[in-house]
């Protein structure tokens, strides 16, 4: 696989990039902070045991950065065949409700920015006969729920978009993979109380790797969350109004 990763310096993206590097896939990293990107690239090279992992700046809040970043990746990898987006902004429900400026940023990066970036990637992949486009939604986007009204809405929009791509372009060779992590213990969720079935980034990464190889359109990670969300998706509205989750 020749993969471009946006957001691989931290959390689940970091864990996934390590698995890809260790099995010998060619990688190119995109992200906001050049210094941080360089450190992650060195880390992945040390783990892969060979040099040659490039990186370029790319920021979900700056759409003008997308095309040059993907151009740089294309050049370095000699034509990528997979694009993986794990980057996103996060804010707790309280913070997002209280701070419209933060809310605007989260909506902008997680929905507008992510979809614009995926569109750039989709066009390039389709032009070369297909490939894999993977983005991280969330179980927060599966059902309108009290603790994640805003963050969840951005992820619901992204899932919807990825599902449509799968329907429209799979026949042309574009495989989309929508990852829906449950609660995963990363820097993003540090400080939040961990619910049952909380996962580790390494475990999620293994699930995602298998989904990438198989082209699974929707994957829950840890897998137990597929069952949890099946139940939650089917709870009637009067129950959802009463419960706290």
């Amino acid at each position, binding site marked *: 696989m020749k993969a471009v990763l946006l957001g691989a310096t931290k959390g689940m993206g970091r864990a996934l990039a390590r698995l890809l590097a260790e099995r010998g896939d060619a990688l190119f990293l995109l992200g906001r902070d050049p210094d*941080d990107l360089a450190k*992650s690239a060195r880390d992945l090279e040390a783990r892969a045991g060979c040099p040659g992992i490039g990186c370029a700046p790319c920021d979900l809040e700056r759409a003008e950065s997308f095309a040059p970043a993907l151009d740089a990746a294309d050049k370095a990898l000699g034509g990528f065949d997979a694009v993986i987006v794990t980057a996103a902004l996060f804010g707790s429900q309280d913070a997002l409700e209280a701070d419209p400026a933060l809310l605007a940023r989260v909506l902008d990066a997680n929905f507008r920015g992510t979809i614009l970036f995926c569109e750039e990637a989709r066009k390039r992949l389709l032009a070369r006969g297909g490939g894999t486009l993977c983005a991280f939604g969330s179980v927060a986007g599966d059902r309108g729920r009290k603790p994640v009204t805003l963050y969840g809405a951005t992820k619901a929009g992204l899932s919807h978009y990825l599902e449509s791509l799968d329907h429209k372009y799979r026949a042309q060779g574009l495989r989309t993979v929508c990852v829906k992590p449950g609660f995963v213990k990363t820097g993003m969720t540090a400080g939040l109380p961990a619910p049952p079935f909380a996962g580790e980034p390494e475990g999620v990464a293994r699930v995602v790797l298998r989904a990438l190889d198989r082209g699974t359109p929707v994957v829950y990670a840890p897998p137990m969350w597929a069952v949890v969300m099946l139940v939650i998706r089917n709870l009637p509205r009067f129950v959802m109004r009463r419960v706290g989750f």
Partner: protein
Amino acid sequence: MAATLESWGRRTAPGAEILSEDLERITPGRSLSRGLGRSYGDASLPAPGASEVVGTILADRILAFDPGSGLLRAEAGLSLREIVRLFLPRGFFVPVTPGTMFVTLGGMVASDVHGKNHHKDGCFGAHVTRLRLRTADDRIVICSREEHPDLFRATLGGMGLTGHILEVEFRMARVPSPWILCDSERIDDIDAFVAGLKEAGKTWPMTMGWIDCLSGGRHTGRGILLRGRWAEKHEAPSRPPRPIPRLAVPFLFPEWVLNPLTIRVFNELYYRAHFRRRRRRIMHPEPFFYPLDMILQWNRIYGRRGFTQYQCVLPESGDAGAARRFLTRLTRLGGASFLCVIKDCGPEGEGTLSFPKPGISIALDMAVRDDTQRIVDALNEEVIALGGRIYLTKDSFTRPEHFRAMEPRLGEFERVRRIWDPEGRMKSALAVRVLGDRA
């Protein structure tokens, strides 16, 4: 609900870990960093009143590795387990390893860990070339033997009290194969054991022993002596060592499970299980270096109140029977130890408060019971009389006056701390308990 932090010996303190991949962002203004929380006592717990500690485990990137020189630079939260997993297949191993792989690089520096090769290779700190610290005044300082050597030395074995360790650079060791050649022998008593360790150390790079500290009289300190070295290519299997499935202790055992009788039976069986007097075999490196890691959460067998490890080093300048005298005293105190590990130490390291010094190190795991403080006090008095000292990383019960009496280097450590941290911002529960820091 008030959050609680816990150490490996189940010492607890109110507080929470602040976690991030970016240690530079979260360290300013905080008083302590904590890695995997494997120190047994209160070294990784916040001082009373300081409710937050920096958790380093997400900061785990390898920043540089040069296969030519073996130099490796990484963020402080990188675990030893990960280092072994990545580098052993490529013919490199850490120059010094403690008895568990569930530790971080930062923790290995802060405890200046030692291992089976101490008589030959010294502590981990001897192989560290450079450290990057966030000091108490929120500056970022690089230190080494050339730059700020006082800070560098105080940080090796400094229990995290000189600043937050952000990055560690050290030299990995080359190994001829990923397998261990282990030679083990049944030994009849403590005097033979001490002599056996010394003799083995002349030719073997790794030595240690397990002793039965419940049998008295003629059998005092009988046990199994291990000698080891990396197997040469032609001795080793051609396949790499496979990952070993691990079991976990599923819940806290009730306290009656470990009692003098069950401990005696375990010790007897362990000794008897070594049928032949001496045997030699090729071993997987993990059961050789990390036998207890095979069982996850083994600290649960000690029950709710947890356990403490009493580890001391008795100098060889003292009389030859120091180890026997210590064990006899222990038996008389009724301190039943489930596991007792013995090892001869080489020269004192560079770390200002680094634990080992030439002599015999004895480590006892004891369940915490009503009389634990009394036993530790009595053992400490014995150790002071013999001119030895204890290992802070394992300690939960030592009194400040006892530590001061066994640690002539404490003044130097405090001098360096005052230079780099005049307001006493860096602190831990251990520093308050043993070093007399203000809470």
